[in-house]
Structure formats: structure tokens, C-alpha cells
């Protein structure tokens, strides 16, 4: 009896020990922290599985760390505790923070070169990578999910208002005419928007080739100052404020609260990220169209190109050299045309290489899904200028909050557009100077 029990215990211990022993040739682990949950998280997981299955030297471990802010904070805190991952997903407003941390970051172009991977910057879409390159043109991070604002409109509502459903407004003047018609036909919400700062100030400035901030929108130095209170931007916000007063523009919220209102058919026109396409297609019970963001046609140089929003992948330093080759291989895998094309088609985010764009065209995807190419055409029609490469500001997330607060005062009618934008510039500059002080 005692012998039996001893044998059983020994057997159990042996099985446990056997289970704990690692396989002899362990692949090097590459830690990848990201902010994707839900369907996007599943697609990301499939991508990682595809890479892991395509080779045996490296194993990418993807870990969900929370939303964009939480992921960035987790990465920063981990770095201070020497527990940082190899790859980290950082949203575009965190770019300045990452760039200023030169000792913490391994620029992507260096990682690719020292990892022995062939890396030709010209295969990437310039308007996508431009956001993440330094003034000399070197890629610092790998763009992962990038989108750009476009105009969605309800074709059924257009027909009811007597407007041509296949001729969406191209300029803001035509837009105003459309709003009048929609309001007259009884619409309770002719127009709403998502991410108001990104669409109507940041992208707006790039689209019209005017500066958002000095020093090439912050690319050329930390001593940048905000200048988005210029006459054109004031004119645009003033126009939106007047439309808000007349009930033609209905403000729904700072982020994407307006999406639900458009998809339900309540709002007829909606400026939002191109990545909202999947949601609209799934939920809209009406005919809808996707069109270019409108512009003021009396501005020379408009329309220039729109800028991106989204996130990119940064490589954090502090790990042994050999492990970064795994990161380089992962980036090469992500840049493959098939992988990018699939990512683009499934999520609505832009493909980061021209080859993926061509492949998607050849596969006939754009014919089967009208409106999905609009964003790409908007972004590739012209080469980016100083004002339209992107925006790189410290404390940008907080500056966006300041802008949101001031714009909300305009929509509520408590401030004029000029006062609101001047106040936002003043408050934002304080934040910029503090960032410069901390990182200089």
C-alpha cells in the first residue's frame, strides 16, 4: 500500500517535471505589445501566427496591453524597469515622445540594415511613411495601421433631398448647398463628424497645404510653435460653427460617437476615418457612398494630400543584438504584398507598400467594394510637402484634448472661432514648451 502511494507520487512528479522541460531548440522570443482587441486583435493574432509558422528561428509573442495610451505607458514604465518588449505599438500622437527618446529606440531603418534584411524605403507609400521618418528621410518606425479621413454620405438621404446620389460635394461651398437641401428635406442631422481635431484642423491644414505648426509641423525641431489659428482655419471653424447654430452640423462627441448616428441613418453626411468602412458596410441599412474630403477651392494648392492617423511599430533598445534580427524578419514579413493586401482588405486600413496597392487593384477588390480606393487616391495623388507630411508634436494627445475643449465652446456658441483657436494655440504652446524643457 505504501509502496503504491510512493510510486504514484513519483510518477506524478516525473510527469510534472517532464512537462516543465522546454523543447531543446527553443525559438528566440520577440515580445510585441499592442493595443488591438476584438476583431482587429484576431486579425493581428493571425498575422503573427503566419509569421511564426513561416520560420522556426523566432517566435513573436503578441500581448494586448490596453488602449493606445495604456500601451504606451506600459512600455515606458517597462523600459524604466528594464522589462521592455522588443516591439511596441505607439499611436501617431506618441511619435514625438518616442523620437525624443533616442536612447530607448532602435530606428527601424537601422534594425532592418543590421538584421540583414533587404530594405528599400521607396517601396513604401510616401504619405504613409512620411509621418514616421526623420527630416533626412530615414524610417524610424514601421507604419502598422494607418487611415485617413474621408467623407461618407447617405445616398438615400441625398435622393430624398433632391441631390444627385452619385455627385457628392467636392468643395465646402458645394457642401453648404447640400446641407441646405438636406435640412429643407427634413433631416434632423445633415452632417456630423468624428475626431474633430484630426479631421477639421490637422488633416484640413495638410489638405490645403497650410502649416499646423512651425518647423515643418514639428519635424525639424522641438522649438516648434502652433499656428493652426491662421485665417483659413479660422474661416473653416467659423463656417462649421455657423452650421452648428443652424442645426446643419450636429456635434456628437470627441471620438467616434458620430459613427453610430451615421450608421443608423440619423445623420446624412459623416467625415471619418477610412477604417470605418467595415463598420458602415456591416450596419448601414441604406445605400452609402465614400468620397474625398471636401476642400475650399479658392485656396491655391488645395487639394494637396491628407495625412494619416493610426499607429506604428517601434523597436525598443536594450535587448541582445541577435534578437533584433527577429524583429527585422517580422517587419519584412509584414511588408510582403500578400500580407499587406490581406490586412488592407480585411480592416480598411491603408496598405503600406505600393506593391500591396497594385496587388489589391489586380485582385479587383476596388471594383467589388466601391469607395475603398478613395482614401488611397487622396493620399497618393500628390507628393507630400512640408505642411502635409504629418505632424510631430510633444504632448500631442493633451494638445488634442485642448483643441477638443475649445472647439466644443464654438459648437455651443460660447466662443467665436477666432477666440477659440487663439486660446487653443496659447494653451498648446505651453504644453509644447514643457515637453521641450523635459526632452532637451
Amino acid at each position, binding site marked *: 500500500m505504501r509502496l503504491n502511494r510512493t510510486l504514484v507520487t513519483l510518477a506524478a512528479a516525473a510527469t510534472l517535471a517532464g512537462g516543465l522541460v522546454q523543447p531543446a531548440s527553443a525559438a528566440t522570443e520577440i515580445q510585441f505589445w499592442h493595443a488591438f482587441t476584438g476583431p482587429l486583435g484576431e486579425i493581428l493574432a493571425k498575422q503573427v501566427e503566419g509569421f511564426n509558422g513561416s520560420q522556426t528561428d523566432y517566435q513573436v509573442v503578441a500581448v494586448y496591453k490596453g488602449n493606445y495610451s495604456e500601451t504606451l*505607458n506600459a512600455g515606458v514604465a517597462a*523600459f524604466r524597469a528594464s522589462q521592455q518588449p522588443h516591439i511596441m505599438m505607439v499611436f501617431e500622437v506618441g511619435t514625438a*515622445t518616442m523620437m525624443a527618446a533616442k*536612447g530607448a529606440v532602435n530606428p527601424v531603418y537601422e534594425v532592418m540594415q543590421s538584421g540583414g534584411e533587404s530594405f528599400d524605403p521607396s517601396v513604401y507609400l510616401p504619405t504613409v511613411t512620411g509621418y514616421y521618418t526623420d527630416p533626412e528621410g530615414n524610417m524610424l518606425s514601421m507604419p502598422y495601421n494607418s487611415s485617413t479621413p474621408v467623407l461618407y454620405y447617405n445616398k438615400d438621404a441625398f435622393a430624398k433631398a433632391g441631390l444627385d446620389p452619385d455627385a457628392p460635394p467636392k468643395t465646402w461651398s458645394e457642401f453648404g448647398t447640400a446641407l441646405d437641401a438636406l435640412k429643407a428635406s427634413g433631416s434632423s442631422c445633415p452632417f456630423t463628424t468624428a475626431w474633430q481635431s484630426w479631421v477639421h484642423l490637422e488633416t484640413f491644414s495638410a489638405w490645403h497645404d497650410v502649416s499646423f505648426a512651425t518647423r515643418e509641423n514639428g519635424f525639424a525641431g522641438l522649438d516648434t510653435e502652433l499656428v493652426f489659428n491662421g485665417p483659413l482655419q479660422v474661416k473653416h471653424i467659423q463656417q462649421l460653427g455657423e452650421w452648428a447654430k443652424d442645426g446643419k452640423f450636429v456635434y456628437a462627441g470627441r471620438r467616434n460617437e458620430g459613427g453610430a448616428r451615421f450608421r443608423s441613418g440619423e445623420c446624412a453626411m459623416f467625415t471619418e476615418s477610412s477604417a470605418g468602412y467595415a463598420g458602415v458596410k456591416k450596419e448601414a441599412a441604406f445605400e452609402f457612398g465614400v468620397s474625398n474630403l471636401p476642400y475650399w477651392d479658392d485656396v491655391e494648392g488645395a487639394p494637396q494630400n491628407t495625412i494619416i492617423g493610426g499607429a506604428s511599430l517601434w523597436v525598443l533598445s536594450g535587448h541582445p543584438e541577435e534578437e533584433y534580427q527577429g524583429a527585422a524578419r517580422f517587419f519584412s514579413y509584414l511588408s510582403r504584398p500578400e500580407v499587406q493586401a490581406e490586412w488592407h482588405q480585411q480592416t480598411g486600413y491603408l496598405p503600406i507598400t505600393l506593391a500591396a496597392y497594385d496587388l489589391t487593384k489586380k485582385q479587383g477588390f476596388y471594383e467589388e467594394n466601391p469607395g475603398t480606393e478613395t482614401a488611397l487616391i487622396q493620399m497618393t495623388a500628390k507628393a507630400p510637402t512640408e505642411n502635409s507630411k504629418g505632424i510631430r508634436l510633444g504632448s500631442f494627445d*493633451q494638445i488634442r484634448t485642448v483643441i477638443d475643449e475649445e472647439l466644443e465652446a464654438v459648437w455651443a456658441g460660447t466662443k467665436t472661432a477666432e477666440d477659440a483657436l487663439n486660446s487653443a494655440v496659447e494653451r498648446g504652446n505651453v504644453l509644447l514648451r514643457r515637453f521641450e524643457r523635459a526632452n532637451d
Partner: protein
Amino acid sequence: MEKRVVFRPSPLPYLLVLPQLAITAVFFLWPASQALYQSLLIQDPFGFKTEFVWFENFAYLFSDPLYLASFWTTAYFSAAVTALSLGLALLLAVMADRVVKGATGYKTLLIWPYAVAPAVAGVLWLFLFNPSIGLIAYYLKVAGYNWNHVLNGGQAMSLVVIAAAWKQVSYNFLFFLAGLQAIPRSLVEAAAIDGAGPLRRFWTIIFPLLSPTTFFLIVVNIVYAFFETFGIIHTITEGGPGKSTEILVYKVYADGFEGQDLGGSAAQSVVLMVIVISLTVIQFRFIERKVHY
């Protein structure tokens, strides 16, 4: 045998207190001293460049209108939470004191909200008041009142005050009940014989005799409203539409962890610490005088 009046010093008391001292040292003294030190620096988030700037962080704080506004928000919030939770708890305790049948049942039902974590309490109330799917929000709309705490700052503040007070009512209730039961029945009966009505009895006899309890609870509630309501604010409003519910402790988090401004955030936490210490000192000095033991 000679009786000893002086006890031989023994290491046992020190050993018994040591675990608690260790916890206090690790979880309070160490972080607090680090915060004090960090408030004198301006650092980049990754810790590469550190500049010693004396009290510049504090100067920057007090010239920031948003920070000063946060003071008012916190003052309003803590006064509202304390008043609401103390008032409700006192009312419930007076009622529960009279109940004879099923007293334990009532007391249990009144006590369990204290065990709910602040974040969970926040989510519970958020679900009830969610502008699109909340039950109470729906009934408010039916009654003609348009509830949208996402856009309206005043409504957001009301919601967080209700959620925070709800959690604290149980704790106050327990103490008030104990305090009520410590009052000698003979005093109340004597006043009744003399012709005092229930309200008069309450205000002139019971309430003054409850004053040690009330004083203690005021201190505890204010500290609760200052510090332990972070979970509620974070889950319901994240600082509220346009900073209307951004209390001081939430601003410490928002500036430090979301804004990556570690020096400024540490300075704010030092200011908070000073405020709560001085509040407690003031309360012990002045209000203690009015307390009848």
C-alpha cells in the same frame, strides 16, 4: 517575593509591530519620498534626461488655471459626497435603530455596498445612467429630462457624487448605528417625559451625543472623497466632459501616466498630501473642541 513595578524591556512588542512598520515603510514612506524627490525634477518619460529644478514644478502648477479649477472641483465634490453619504447614513441608522424584527437582514443589506470595489461601483452606476442603454437614463428621458452625462458637465458631476456617496453610506451607517446604540436610553426617555417631540429629542440630545462619531466620520469621508474615489471617476467619466469631474487625485494620474509629465504629477501629489495632512490637523484642533465625550 518582591513585586516588580518596572517591567523588563522585551523585544517582543517591537517584533510584533515590525510587519506593519515594514508595510508602511515600503508602501507609503518609500513612494512618498520618491514623489517628493521627483517633484523637484523635470524628466523625460524614459528617464534619460533629468534636470533638478527646485520648485519650478510647483510654480508651473499654481500658474495653471486648469489646476486651480481642479481645486474647486475637488472641494465641491468632497463636500457633496460627505454631506450626501453622512446624511443618508444617519437617516438609515436612526430608522434601523428602531427596527426589532429582521434587524439583521436590514443591516446586512445596508452594509454590503462597502465591499464593492470603487471601479465596480463606478461601472454599476454607469450602466444605470448610460445615455443610450441605461435604465434610469431611459426613465428620465420618458419623464422629459434629457440625460447625457457625456456632454453635460453638471450631470457628470452629479453621477460621480451619487456613485461615490452610495459606496460610503454603508461605512457611515455602521458607525452611526453603533454610536446610536451607545446612547443611554434613560436620557431619551427623560426628554420624552419632559415633553420633547421626536425631532427635538434628536437634535438636542441624540445628535450632540453622536458628535465624536460624526467628527470621526467627517475626517474619514473627506479623505475617502479625496483619494479613494479615483476608481469611480476613472470608470465613469475619466475626468468628465471638459475636465468638469477632474478631481486632484485624477489629475495626478492623467498628467503623470497619460501626459507623461512625471515632475508635474509628483508635484501635484505632494500638494495633495500637504492638503490632506493640514485638513486633518485643522479638524482635530478645532472641531475636536465641539465634541462632547
